[in-house]
Every structure is written in C-alpha cells, then in structure tokens.
C-alpha cells in the first residue's frame, strides 16, 4: 500500500473500478470488501479501504461479539443512586455517586502488543484506557492491572513479565496515577499470549460529562496532543486479529510507543479546557487513530465533517494519507470546538505546551470527507465506517471434551492427612506462583500519588477518597478465574463476578456496577464461541441477581498460541461506593487477642482449586457453587459492620481457600493465630467454596457480630484468635512459624523475575 506513488482519489476510484486492492492483507474478508463496494457504489479509495479495514476489524467493530454483548443491555441500568449517566456504547460507563459527583471506569485489554513488545505494549495499554476516561470529561484518579503470563519458570515469562510490569509502572507512575490493585496469574495457557488488562477510574462533576458527538455546523475540529507518526500502523487490524506463530517476521513496528509525559500534559490541558467550557465534544485516539476519531465523532453527531489531512502535524513527513489515517500514535485527542471558543482553546493548549491544530470542521449533510493535497481521498457516510460494520452470528458448539473434563473431578487425588502433611501442603501453596507475595510487582507501582489512596494492594480492593470534606469514596476490585471458566464458562464467569463483589464489600463498600474484559480464543472456533456465550449468560444471570449492571468493557478475541487457545478469561472490574472512607475495613490481623471468625459455609469443593493445581497439576471437574443471594446478604452485613466499626479486619476467601487467607492475614502485620478447624481439616483448609470471608474483631464485639450475622442469615463460625506469637497453629494438626511461611511466600517472584529486569 505504501508503494502507491500517486494519490488514490475518489475520482480515480471512479475511473478505475477494476483496480485490485489489498483488502485481504488488511484483514478484510471477501464479502466484507464486496459490502464496502456496495455501500460506496464504487471501489473504495486506498484511504477509505484503510479506514474500513481498521474500523471493521474485530478489535474495533466487535463484529463477532456485538450480538451477544447487546444482551448486557437487558440488565436494568441503574445503581443505588439512579440511572447510569452513560453506559455501553459510550467511551466508558458513568455512575452517579451523589452530591453532584460521578465516577467513570473501564477495563481494556492490550494483550497482543504486550507479547510483541512487553514494555511499550503494556505502557500504551495504560495510556489508552486513561484517555478513554479523560474523554468522558473526568479526571483520571487511579489505575489497576490484571496480568496473566505463562508459567513462572518459563524462559519467555522472564522476558514478558518484567517488561509488562515495568511498562505498566513506567507509564502510570509518570502520569501520576496511583495503581491501587489488580492481579497477577501464571498459567501455561498464557505462554504465548499474555493478558494485559488495564482499568482506569475517573471522577467528574455531572456538568462536565462529555459525550463524543460532533454537532453544530461550522464548529471546528481540533486535533491536539502528540504529532502523528508511523507507529502502530494497522496495529488494530493486524495485531488484534492475528495470532503469533514461531518463525514469522517480527511485527515490532506495529506496536505503538508511549510518551507518558505528553499524556500527563494532555490530562491537565484537557481538564482545563473542560473548566473553561470550550469543548463541545471530545474523542480520544485509540485503536484506528484518525479513522476512528473522525468517523465516530461524525457518526454520533447530527452533521457531516470535513477534514484536511495536510493540516495534521506529522512526526514523519513521508507518511502517506492512508498511514496518517491508520496511525496509532499515542497521546492524541480530537475536540469539537465552537468558532468563538477556538482562541481560548488554543491559549490553554499553549499554556501546557500541547500542540493543537484545526484540521477540519463540522459540515451540513451526513458525509465524512477528507482531502489530501487538495484532492478528495475519502467521501463516506461515517456511520457505515463506525457502526455499520459486519456483524457475525458465529456458529456455536458445545465442546465434546467438556463432559469428559467435568467428569474428571479432584476426588481421586491423594490428599494430605497427617498434621505434618497438611502443614507441608500449606507451605507449598503459600510458595506457589499464583498464591505467593506479589509485592515484587506492586512495589513497582506508585500507590501514594494524588494522596487519596485509602487502600491498595495487597488489600482485597483498592479504595480511593473522592471528596476530602465528606470523605466519600469508591472501592474497586478486578478478578478473573480462568481455571474455573475453562471447566464451566458460565459458572467460572460468575465466580469471578462474586469474587470481585466480595472483595469490594468486605472493605465496607457497597458494590454498584461492573466493567468487564472478556479474553477468549478465536471466535471462528465454534467451541470458543460456546465458551464466550456461556460466560455472557453467566454474567447476565449474576449481574441481575446482584443488582450490578454492566457499564461497558472490552472483548479480546484471538488469544491463542498456534492452535492452542487460552483458557477463557473474563476479568471483572467491580466498583463500590463507601459513604465515609474512615469506615473502611482493612485486611490483615491487627490486634492480638481478637477473635477470628469465618463467615459463610464450607463444602468439599476441590475441583479446579489451587490445591489441585499445586499438589497434582490437575484441572478437571466442576467449579464450586455460587449463591448470589448469600452474597447480597454478605454485602449488607459488611455495610452495617463497617459503619459500626465492628471489625478489626476482613479478608475474602478465594484461591487457596482458608489456608491461604490465614497465611495472608497473619503475614500482613506478622501476628500469629491459633485456629481450631470445624470438621475435616483438609476440607476446611483447602476447599474453595465461594461466599466466605475471614474476619477478626475485638472480643467485646462478639455478641453484636453474632447477632448481625444471624440477622443477615449468614453462617458464622468462631475459628480461634489472633496471637502476638508469630506462628500459625491449627489445633491438633500443626504449627508453622511465620518466618518459615514468609520465606516460602515471599521468594517466588523475586527469584524468578528479579534477575531479568
């Protein structure tokens, strides 16, 4: 395409209808190309072909997922404060949190770029989601990251993981956004396809809510931020729709390069532009660059748009118009500005040393026209680019292997019996890659900046103060569980959902709504589509039962190495509200003498558990049961307990069951515990039954806690008490010193990754 010497204009397209075009190389299918010709009633120009190809890619058009995602709209889109202010279809969902404040949050994937170029792929993933939040009119106030890599001991993990972590940190730290939590998981299924999902949350006053609609004939189209370069050309269509095969040519140039300093200026500049009231509409530049920004802004408005590509400031003057339209250069925004506001707009940009250029204007009619060197290179109905892409109702087939897999439960696995064996199993789990200390990762992220971080990793959820006077705040958790989702996609997605729900509510916040990042294999595989639609079914059922609408999110398909798809990995970001962050309930035992309780019920559920993985490398059977109503009662209990300051600590039980929860609670402040286990010790320690929380409280609160738990219909078991003595004792079974536990727990990540930074 770049070898075309003469400009391919609309006129030329009309004169040379039979000219062959590289639609296949651009990722379009034959029928999609035919449809473009039908829409235009001629062949597309090369610029138009570039625009359609990126905008109709799976990444931008959601063509395989759209008909399924629509079903999220069946959920009632209200939270306790009323209807969502923006939801699915906007750049990000917006929730009213009262007092004139609103919160917007979204999670997005940057998986494929992060495999090719771990640092830049992850960095620009953070940059992209931050701009999504900024584009809503919000000040970004925090980020989270959900990371999945190949096995911890795989050589390529030592290349990918440190780079991704440094990229997330390098970008977010330089942007001045606290990283308040996330996850890091290692599994062989991600060996050739890591998952890098980044979440950003922002806060805004209602009156600053901005939606991306280009309206008002004569209004100016202003491009501001970084210059446009050759980075990330075709990244959206080529990178996001292909998988990596060994020995292929390097695709390094298709990954964008981030400049967090420019993004920091862009944030401050944009917020000042909002304050000054000089922005009519705003769109961030994500995948598909100018193609996306112009066609989305124009199609969402009530007019057309004219753009002069010659006006676009370039970093590389040799770029062809097709490349300018496809470039994914980072740190750019597009604003629609009334003519009388342009001068003030430019002054503010100049103050922040941000380059701003008028590149076009809103026009009468409904066409998006783009000129280059005085010739027309694009003349399209923008809706056909942005919204009328193909939609596929892909074939769905329940895999034949699922019955065999589900029949292969963990019952036949040899279990530890003696106290000594149980102790060894606890140590082995604590020192395993997915349950060990993640501070090697999280200590590379600034969690203090902006001065509102009430809770951050390793707490169950991150918590940010929104208002210093009223002390109102939000809590956020992100969770996924690919093992359970592999065994049963609907149930697995629900387990991720209730885990995020629990993580938010145990800190004292009330869960409100979710954003989701759905990471799956190829949608062209009917079995993958089965996993995908099952997961969506599960989420819809769960969200309805929990009263938490889906506000938006992201789908990432084609996550596979060769023909091997990743385990299906829906990642859920749950947002909660707390009226007074001073009521937050922290994790970690705080006070010797406190009573330790378990809320919730434990059944013998080991299929897909971390114990089965660590002790036997086993994955089979059926995931644990989920009780949504029980979770709503848990949330009500914690809301009440937090307000009344009944609890010293609370920690959700999930991976690794009670055993790991106890280890983490003891190690946080190096306080011991003495525990008497009800029933079978192995089940009590390693089952991963959902809906359970470990809490500690002063003895004088015992009666009130028992009464509240009973009133909320929650099973409550006294397990033991917190000790000054640094050891974890399970009566009649074993005693483990906290030093030994700490050594095992703290070692894995620094040992495996520390030498590779």
């Amino acid at each position: 395409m770049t070898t075309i010497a003469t400009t391919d204009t609309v006129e030329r397209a009309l004169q040379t209808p039979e000219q062959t075009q590289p639609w296949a190389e651009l990722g379009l299918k034959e029928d999609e190309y035919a449809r473009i010709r039908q829409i235009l009633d001629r062949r597309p120009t090369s610029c138009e072909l570039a625009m359609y190809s990126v905008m109709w890619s799976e990444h931008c058009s959601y063509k395989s997922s759209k008909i399924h995602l629509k079903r999220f709209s069946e959920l009632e889109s209200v939270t306790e404060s009323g209807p969502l202010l923006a939801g699915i279809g906007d750049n990000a969902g917006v929730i009213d949190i009262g007092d004139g404040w609103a919160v917007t949050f979204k999670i997005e994937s940057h998986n494929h770029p992060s495999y090719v170029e771990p640092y830049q792929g992850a960095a620009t993933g953070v940059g992209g989601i931050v701009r999504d939040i900024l584009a809503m009119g919000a000040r970004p106030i925090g980020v989270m990251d959900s990371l999945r890599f190949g096995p911890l001991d795989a050589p390529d993990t030592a290349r990918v993981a440190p780079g991704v972590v440094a990229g997330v940190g390098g970008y977010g730290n330089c942007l001045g956004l606290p990283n308040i939590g996330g996850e890091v998981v290692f599994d062989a299924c991600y060996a050739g396809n890591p998952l890098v999902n980044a979440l950003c949350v922002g806060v805004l006053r209602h009156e600053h809510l901005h939606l991306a609609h280009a309206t008002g004939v004569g209004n100016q189209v202003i491009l501001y931020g970084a210059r446009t370069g050759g980075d990330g050309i075709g990244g959206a269509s080529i990178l996001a729709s292909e998988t990596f095969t060994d020995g292929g040519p390097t695709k390094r140039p298709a990954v964008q390069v981030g400049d967090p300093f420019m993004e920091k200026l862009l944030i401050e500049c944009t917020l000042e532009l909002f304050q000054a009231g000089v922005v009519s509409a705003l769109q961030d530049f994500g995948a598909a660059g100018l193609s996306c920004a112009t066609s989305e802004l124009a199609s969402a408005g009530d007019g057309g748009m004219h753009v002069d590509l010659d006006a676009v400031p370039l970093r590389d003057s040799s770029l062809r118009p097709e490349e300018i339209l496809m470039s994914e250069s980072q740190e750019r925004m597009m604003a629609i500005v009334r003519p009388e506001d342009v001068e003030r707009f430019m002054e503010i940009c100049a103050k922040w040393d941000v380059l701003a250029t008028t590149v076009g204007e809103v026009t009468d009619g409904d066409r998006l026209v783009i000129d280059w060197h005085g010739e027309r290179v694009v003349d399209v109905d923008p809706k056909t680019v942005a919204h009328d892409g193909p939609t596929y109702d892909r074939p769905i087939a329940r895999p034949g292997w699922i019955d065999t897999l589900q029949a292969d439960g963990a019952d036949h696995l040899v279990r530890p019996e003696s106290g000594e064996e149980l102790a060894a199993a606890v140590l082995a789990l604590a020192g395993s890659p997915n349950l060990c200390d993640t501070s090697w990762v999280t200590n590379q992220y600034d969690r203090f900046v902006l001065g509102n971080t009430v809770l951050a990793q390793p707490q169950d959820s991150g918590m940010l103060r929104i208002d210093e006077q009223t002390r109102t705040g939000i809590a956020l958790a992100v969770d996924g569980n690919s093992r359970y989702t592999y065994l049963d996609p609907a149930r697995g997605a629900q387990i991720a959902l209730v885990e995020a729900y629990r993580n938010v509510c145990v800190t004292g916040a009330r869960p409100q709504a979710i954003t989701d990042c759905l990471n799956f294999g190829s949608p062209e595989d009917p079995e993958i589509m089965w996993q995908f639609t099952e997961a969506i079914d599960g989420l819809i059922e769960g969200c309805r039962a929990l009263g938490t609408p889906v506000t938006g999110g992201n789908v990432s398909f084609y996550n596979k190495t060769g023909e091997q798809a990743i385990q299906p990995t829906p990642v859920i970001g749950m947002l909660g509200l707390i009226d007074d962050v001073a009521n937050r309930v922290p994790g970690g035992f705080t006070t010797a003498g406190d009573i330790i309780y378990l809320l919730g019920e434990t059944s013998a559920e080991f299929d897909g558990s971390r114990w089965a993985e660590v002790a036997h490398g086993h994955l089979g059977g059926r995931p644990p049961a989920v009780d949504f109503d029980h979770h709503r009662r848990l949330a009500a209990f914690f809301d009440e307990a937090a307000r009344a300051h009944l609890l010293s600590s609370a920690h959700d039980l999930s991976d690794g069951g009670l055993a790991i929860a106890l280890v983490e609670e003891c190690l946080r402040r190096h306080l011991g515990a003495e525990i008497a286990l009800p029933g079978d010790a192995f089940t009590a320690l390693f089952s991963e039954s959902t809906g359970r929380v470990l809490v500690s409280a002063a003895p004088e609160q015992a009666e009130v806690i028992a009464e509240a738990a009973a009133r909320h219909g929650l099973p409550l078991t006294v397990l033991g008490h917190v000790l000054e003595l640094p050891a974890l004792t399970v009566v009649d079974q074993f005693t483990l010193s906290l030093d030994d536990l700490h050594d095992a727990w703290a070692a894995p990540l620094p040992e495996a990754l520390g030498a590779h930074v």
Partner: protein
Amino acid sequence: MRVGVVTFPGSLDDGDAQRAVRLTGGEPVPLWHASDSLGEVDAVVLPGGFSYGDYLRGGAIARFAPIMGDVIRRAGDGLPVLGICNGFQILCEAHLLPGALIRNEGRTFVCKDQILRVESADTVWSNAFTAGDEIVVALKHGEGNYVAEPDEIERLEEEQRIVFRYVGNPNGSTHDIAGVTNERGNVVGLMPHPEHSVDPLVSASLDGRGFFASLEAFLARAL
C-alpha cells in the same frame, strides 16, 4: 506561613504538597514554572514527579525553568527550600545541593513505606525531630540512588549535612543517604515523600508533618 509549591510540566505530587501545607496549618501558594518570580512566600517546595518527562535525566531540564532563577537567588538569601524526590533531583542539578541521583541499584521503581533515621535536626526542615529518631515516610522512585565524589561524601559526613539516612537501603544510595542539606541548612532535598505522610486516612505514619512543623518553628524564631 505561605509556602510556595512549584508546578513544572510533569510535576505529580504538587497537589499533595499543597495539601500537606494546608493540613499542617500553612497556606499553600501554587507557583508556575514559567513565572520568573516566587512572589511573597516564606518557603518553597519543589515537588515530586517527572518534570518534562525526565527522559534526559531527572531534573536536568527543570533546572533551567524560568522560576528556578528566583529559587536559586532566594535560596542564597536563606529562603527555606525543600526538594522532594524530583525536587531533590532538580536541586542537585541546580547545584543548590551536592551530588546526583542515579538509577536504583535494583533497576526497578520502588514504592514502599520507608524507615528513615534522622541524622541532623539542625536544618530548617528537620528541627522538630531529634537526631537518632526513626521515622516512617512514603517512598517511590526509580532514580533515587544518591552518589557524589568520595571527598564530597566525606565533607557531607564531617559537616553533618546528611539529614536523613535509610534504615534498610532501598536503592543503593552511598552511605544510605536519603536526604542532605546545604551549608546554611535552609535547603533540604530528600527522595522520600513527607507530603504523603501527613494524613491518617492515606498514610502509614504522620511523620511527614514534622517537616512542616520544623519550618513553622524556624519561621517563628526568625520573626
């Protein structure tokens, strides 16, 4: 107590520094890098962040910002100046303080609650402490490894101009140096962030308040 806080392009902790001034009873005065005057202030804080992106070297470009002329001039007249993290780097680049900050020995960014030992209570910004005190202050940086020529380090030791030392060195700094002062004791730079250790809801300690209490005590004496 009017305390100026300079915002450079890429400053990140400027708002936190202003809040810390406010929470400790002072009046924060936002200052813009492009201004050539500090105006009416009793002290100035150069906050943390990545001024101008710090792609060249931490503080290397900010040191030439227009406002730095007045910072250097008035520091010479005895104006209290506190450089935090990137601010410390800027003060070193501006030669208001000796030495330089290079990449952490462990090569990664480090974020943690850090124990510091107060080595000198004889500065404008540390007189509310007692030498030997151990305090906890938030720390977060990728380039905080303090280096200087051996004779410079010797001089700092002899003149007791090392104000804070790390207890458990997080970045490889020479002699565990976390913060230093100039000969007069009015200019202090350190890598940890006292402005992030003033608010009980978001900090592991309130030890950062001591920095501003020190300033207040100094200004009260100076009146």
